[in-house]
């Protein structure tokens, strides 16, 4: 199982080496409802931690998706353009948003691990 870290805004980053795959969590997709559109960053874009990197839209809500850590976008999930429902069906798999080359891996320490995120979700209900 990949090493996955979470933000309080319900983004995740699945880390492998110096890169990571970013998306929104299962909790987030449930709260948003049917996802109808995802606006992704451009490949090559430099994003900073906690800055808006993507937008996810359901029928009645649009939410900013923040970068969990800083880095350069090295790939995006273009399939979401045609199949935004993948975010609902498989948020941690086919529903990924973009891949990030980390510029400051130490920022990962500020994120939650699986257990901490689960505990955090408990506090929201």
């Amino acid at each position: 199982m990949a090493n996955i870290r979470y933000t309080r805004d319900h983004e995740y980053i699945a880390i492998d080496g110096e890169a990571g795959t970013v998306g929104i969590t299962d909790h987030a997709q449930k709260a948003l409802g049917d996802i109808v559109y995802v606006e992704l960053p451009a490949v090559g874009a430099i994003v900073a931690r906690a800055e808006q990197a993507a937008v996810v839209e359901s029928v009645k809500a649009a939410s900013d998706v923040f970068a969990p850590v800083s880095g350069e976008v090295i790939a995006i999930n273009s399939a979401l353009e045609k199949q935004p429902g993948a975010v609902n069906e498989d948020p941690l798999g086919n529903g990924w948003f973009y891949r990030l080359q980390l510029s400051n891996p130490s920022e990962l320490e500020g994120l939650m691990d699986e257990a901490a995120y689960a505990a955090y979700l408990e506090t929201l209900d």
Partner: protein
Amino acid sequence: MRFLPHTHEERLDMLGAVGAPTIDSLFAAIPVDKRLTQPLNLPRGKSEAEVARALGRMAAKNTAADTVPFFVGCGAYKHHIPASVDHLIQRSEFLTSYTPYQPEIAQGTLQVLFEFQTQTAMLTGMEVANASMYDGSTAAVEAVLMAHRISRRRKAVLSGGLHPHYAQAIQTMSQMAGDEVVSMPWDVHASEDISAQIDASVSCVVAQTPDVWGNPRDLTELANACHRHGALLIVVFTEAVSLGLLRAPGAIGADIVAGEGQSIGTALNFGGPYLGLFAARQTHVRQMPGRLAGETKDAAGRRGFVLTLSTREQHIRREKATSNICTNSGLCALAFSIHLSLLGEVGLRRLARVNHANAVKLADMLARVPNVDVLNRSFFNEFTLRVKGDAAAIVERMAARGVLGGVPVSRLLPNAGFDNLILVANTEVNTDDDRAALVAALEGAAS
């Protein structure tokens, strides 16, 4: 009061049910010293007959277009509207319904909007159109803002053929938003070269055809120049009937089209309400302002329509919305759609040809008037006339002779060196007698 159903006794019963001793106890949250204790200093209510008389007297002081030879245009045009259009838009279910937020009981409005969007897209030669904007000028403002969002640049270049009111509205918005505007000099002869102004900092060029001076413009090269530099071409029109005869903006490379739709279905109304037409390429649909109706299915699998892509709008996106717009011009869009359905392809094209033929006839008649020149080499149903002397005074003198002969350019652009120019529009409503009256009035007024 005839609009208020309650009797005095009913009001007392209702106060009892509410548990309020007096009606004023329900207004107790208003600070005591700010409550009005006296009636407003305004007249008491009037019967329907009294209202009709009071407003009828005001109306009677105005010269209605239908009562005189009438050649005023410049962004609003006198056309005949079939009686059935006004009858249909006064149906209660169209007139007194709200924005279709409950689609199950608003399919009438939603299907009309879907049909309207399709007609607008066809007419402009574009891929998608929205459910309308306030009017042509505000549509043009929104088009510039949309171009800035798409290009991520903040500089608009305005053609010297753009209606001055449209240019001013864009300038006001841009100044407030901190965006840059470059205005080309006023260009009566359609001879400007905008291409030289376009570089990688330009977001969009806004050009009108037929332009405010009446010249149909070939914008193909301008479109190419825009696209070479990653800028967008916004094509504006103020006379929708011209699209029945002239090449569609989409066919000449427009990226966004913003136009005034008043000509089809909406009366002159002294300037409003009118109808903003707004169309764009499919790739930019998520940056479009305004409402959109879209096709879908209901739970029983039947075709139906809903407002869609509303995440672009203010009630969802708030400060990140594409625009702050809530209302469109729904009833005017309905009138446009009905009128255009009645015209159809064959009717619109014929209407446009009649407009053009009448204008050609008039231009030839005026060219023979001493001290009067038609400046346009080409035009649709409106052209610029150069007279000897002060155009505004001449227009006033013609009005005194019972002819509304056009718009003096100085009304739009005072102190700009255009004091001897008149814009003259000629539509299908003008007869040979009207044209003869204009020629006679002009000969009398200009001498």
